[in-house]
């Protein structure tokens, strides 16, 4: 069956990275279309009229928005030997809980590290470290968040790893010193082809942050 899969995305987006990884994990061929968020394309506005945000997954002409929702969709439409979510309802609920936690907490605090100054910056840094420690504690001694298999929660979080060097530079701290187990987990994840293909280099992100600040009108 001729299947058309398009991904509207923005290369540094840790949310877009999730969808890229999920599609790669399932060996789904997709047409990656880079978006200019400061000059939004007609297709982006048409396919995500509610939020006008990336990533947008378009499957046979029908749009799916929100990266965690896209992951679930991908898992349901392309079921395979490598499911992204566990089959047991309780395990699934735990995975979704942590995905929701990552969505609500990580980006907000991290943004204050590179996007704010003074007290706000310090507060963001403190919160960010606390959140990472909570995640590290949840990981424990497991290989991946779901246990032995790479899955939903790992994918939800790993994109942020490409931004860690930038956070460290702007926050003047070492994430590895605070959360060594989490860094070890991240290094395991980036060895996977799907992740290596989907994450931009840390250096590229770090170089991009000043440009992003300028675009957003932040000093």
């Amino acid at each position, binding site marked *: 069956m001729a299947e058309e899969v398009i991904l509207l995305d923005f290369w540094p987006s840790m949310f877009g990275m999730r969808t890229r990884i999920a599609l790669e994990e399932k060996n789904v061929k997709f047409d990656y279309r880079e978006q200019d968020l400061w000059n939004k394309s007609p297709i982006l506005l048409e396919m995500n009229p*509610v939020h006008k945000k990336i990533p947008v997954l378009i499957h046979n002409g029908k749009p*799916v928005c929100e990266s965690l*929702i896209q992951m679930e*969709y991908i898992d349901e*439409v392309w079921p395979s030997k490598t499911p992204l979510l566990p089959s047991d309802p*309780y395990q*699934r*609920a735990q995975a*979704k*809980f942590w995905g929701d936690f990552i969505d609500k907490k990580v980006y907000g605090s991290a943004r204050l590290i590179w996007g704010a100054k003074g007290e706000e910056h310090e507060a963001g840094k403190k919160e960010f470290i606390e959140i990472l420690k909570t995640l590290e504690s949840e990981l424990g001694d497991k290989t991946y968040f779901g246990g032995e298999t790479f899955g939903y929660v790992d994918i939800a979080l790993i994109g942020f790893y490409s931004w860690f060097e930038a956070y460290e530079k702007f926050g003047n701290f070492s994430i590895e010193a605070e959360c060594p187990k989490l860094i070890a987990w991240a290094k395991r994840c980036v060895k996977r082809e799907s992740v290596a293909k989907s994450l931009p280099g840390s250096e590229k992100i770090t170089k991009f942050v000043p440009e992003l600040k300028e675009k957003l009108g932040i000093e």
Partner: protein
Amino acid sequence: MAERSNSEEVKLLGMWASPFSRRIEIALTLKGVSYEFLEQDITNKSSLLLQLNPVNKMIPVLVHNGKPISESLVILEYIDETWRDNPILPQDPYERTMARFWSKFVDEQIYVTAMKVVGKTGKERDAVVEATRDLLMFLEKELVGKDFLGGKSLGFVDIVATLVAFWLMRTEEIVGVKVVPVEKFPEIHRWVKNLLGNDVIKKCIPPEDEHLKYIRARMEKLNIKSA
């Protein structure tokens, strides 16, 4: 028919006036699942709540055979997967995706924006009311030609959007501004009537008088003027 034995233990840590807690009660009741409701004082959190939801420390928390699940949207999906009678999510993957999308929209966009109306006055309030209405217009359009957001019958998004029908719309009178006037939102008003025609909904939403009393009291405590 429930396949599980009667010794199955279902508890819900919730709060009678919370839309997030009530939606769980709606889902459990729709599926005929018996549960023990444990009313929580969110201003003085119990050790049980803190033990069962140490990360977010919030209600609702569903406890099934001793195992806790938190976050209302996650709980709703768990309930649907565990008790298969009267499914609340559609079967088709794309439709399921849209249900998840709209539910998130209600919680993360409508709710967050609408909350900002409380306590504001003048031009600031007008702006937030306008923003809330813009968001509600998406729901209004979704309802055209449908009895419920789930289609012919009550579904996942309807259960989540009771927040709009019985919280947002109830507080209009207290806040003193008609955020959802019937002239602008005829479909939403029609949908609320349809919801009230459903026995489970009627049974599970907070009684109106008590609810309004509670909201007024809360606003007073927060030093917010009510109409």
